[in-house]
């Protein structure tokens, strides 16, 4: 059996832990650059604020109902996420962190005879230790666990725990879930299924296998199997590290010079390289993209991306930067107002499995590696990017817009939560 543990309205819940005034109030958290809504408290949902709504379009609602607005504070959310995961791992050793607020846990090897009680205990413990409310769904496969989680949240929000350990419970969940809410069914398949008379997950489970294979390919078939209780989605052990690493962000304002785009690319490349070194991987390819703001109809639009082979697999900031700049030279066009770029490093392999290039010597490799180790060590002590590549510069014009940022309560001595002694 697999449990999916999911933090409820996670970013909002994090803000609420440290500010008791937010209790029972409508609260929303905005994406980077305060663009659109990415988390809502239940009260905000009731006001009709949609996920993904651009913040400028809901200004009236915000003012009228006194909605509390926050910029995303990833330093806080990341730390709180690590705390939640740590508490869960004390109960269940085999886990797979799926996202910042979701974790799969393999509960099949545990000796608990009552999984519902275990789930309740985990939920209570996470709440007590971190203040974050979670929902828990347990079922035979990942896809069913996702559905069970959603079912728990919707049908009994206070308990928010559901274990699909008997057939009638599984049937309940399948009949309850519309196909569009099945994990792995996108907009297109949702329409296709509806058109063919499949409206609930139960309908979909009954669809002829041959038809599913023909219309929805292997992915659709896999989802159907998972819903039938046959596990098809493999378990990703966390020790393996990520296969791709991406850093991308929108700019705080529109950027019109190549130099500023270069700064951003350099910063993102440096961040990707750091993450590579942290998980002991090297990248074989690098992908760079630039784009203009598609919401500004009055502007000329441009999007371009390119992937380059990096020759010898590497995790050196300097080497990756060489290729990132080359990629940018190819795709950059002057005369546009850019609002987003990103860098992705791909085809990762373990750092100890790299081979030397044709014209390299072992000592040049070792020297580059030693430099990066020193850079990481200095930055760890003196702060992020104190030592940086020159291309990053120190101008921060394109940096994030975060007008409603809360404190970094758990990671900075200067930002600790204040308690009144008066």
């Amino acid at each position, binding site marked *: 059996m697999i449990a999916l543990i999911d933090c409820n309205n996670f970013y909002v819940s994090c803000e609420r832990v440290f500010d008791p005034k937010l209790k029972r109030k409508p609260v929303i958290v905005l994406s980077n650059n305060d663009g659109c809504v990415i988390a809502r408290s239940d009260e905000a949902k009731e006001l009709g604020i949609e996920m993904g709504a651009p913040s400028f379009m809901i200004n009236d609602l915000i003012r009228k109902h006194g909605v509390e607005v926050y910029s995303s504070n990833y330093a806080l959310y990341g730390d709180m996420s690590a705390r939640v995961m740590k508490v869960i791992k004390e109960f269940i050793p085999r886990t797979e962190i799926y996202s910042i607020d979701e974790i799969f846990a393999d509960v099949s090897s545990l000796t608990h005879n009552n999984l519902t009680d275990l789930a309740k205990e985990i939920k209570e413990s996470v709440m007590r230790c971190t203040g974050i409310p979670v929902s828990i769904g347990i079922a035979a496969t990942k896809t069913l666990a996702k559905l069970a989680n959603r079912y728990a949240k919707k049908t009994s929000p206070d308990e928010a725990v559901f274990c699909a350990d008997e057939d009638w419970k599984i049937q309940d969940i399948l009949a309850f879930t519309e196909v569009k809410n099945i994990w792995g069914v996108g907009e297109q398949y949702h329409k296709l299924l509806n058109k063919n008379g499949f409206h609930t997950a139960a309908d979909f489970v009954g669809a002829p296998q041959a038809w599913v294979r023909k219309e929805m390919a292997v992915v659709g078939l896999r989802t159907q199997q998972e819903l039938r209780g046959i596990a098809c989605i493999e378990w990703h052990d966390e020790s393996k590290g990520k296969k791709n690493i991406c850093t991308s962000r929108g700019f705080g304002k529109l950027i019109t010079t190549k130099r500023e785009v270069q700064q951003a690319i350099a910063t993102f490349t440096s961040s990707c390289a750091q993450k590579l070194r942290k998980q002991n991987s090297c990248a074989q390819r690098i992908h760079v993209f630039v784009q203009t703001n598609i919401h500004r109809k009055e502007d000329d639009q441009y999007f371009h991306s390119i992937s380059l082979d990096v020759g010898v697999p590497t995790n050196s900031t300097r080497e990756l930067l060489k290729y990132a700049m080359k990629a940018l030279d190819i795709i950059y066009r002057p005369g546009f107002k850019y609002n987003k770029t990103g860098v992705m490093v791909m085809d990762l392999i373990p750092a100890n499995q790299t081979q030397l290039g044709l014209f390299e010597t072992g000592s040049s490799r070792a020297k580059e590696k030693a430099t990066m180790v020193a850079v990481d060590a200095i930055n760890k002590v003196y702060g992020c990017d104190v030592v940086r590549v020159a291309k990053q510069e120190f101008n921060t014009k394109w940096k994030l817009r975060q007008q409603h940022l809360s404190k970094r309560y758990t990671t900075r001595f200067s930002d600790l939560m204040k*308690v009144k*002694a008066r």
Partner: protein
Amino acid sequence: MKNGNELKTVAYAGFPSPADDYLDPELDFNAYFRKNPAATVAVRVKGDSMVDAFIPHNSIVIVDRSLRPPNNSIVIATLNGENVIKHLVRTVDGLWLLPANDKYKSVRLTEEMDFAVWGVARHVIIDL
């Protein structure tokens, strides 16, 4: 470096150190102050109502959120939308939040109050 012996693991050019086999790891203050790291939070005290409990203005209090508060313990609590630090005392006439300074009043908790224990104070850090 991982064993916390970075100050002591030097290689002597002449004789090996007789202390080599007896090295203790350095004092680990993180482990001392954070028995349960996932549930430990540091907070900053504002005000002097807890001075008699050795918690002055601007000190840092280390809070363990996983503990259930024993009677007479010092807690961080949310009271009517505010974070406060007080003694939590259970008596025959109910639950009380008591200051540790005569200048301040005790608060008897009633049903109408929006009250919850946020965590239990475990340590105080005071810069001298």
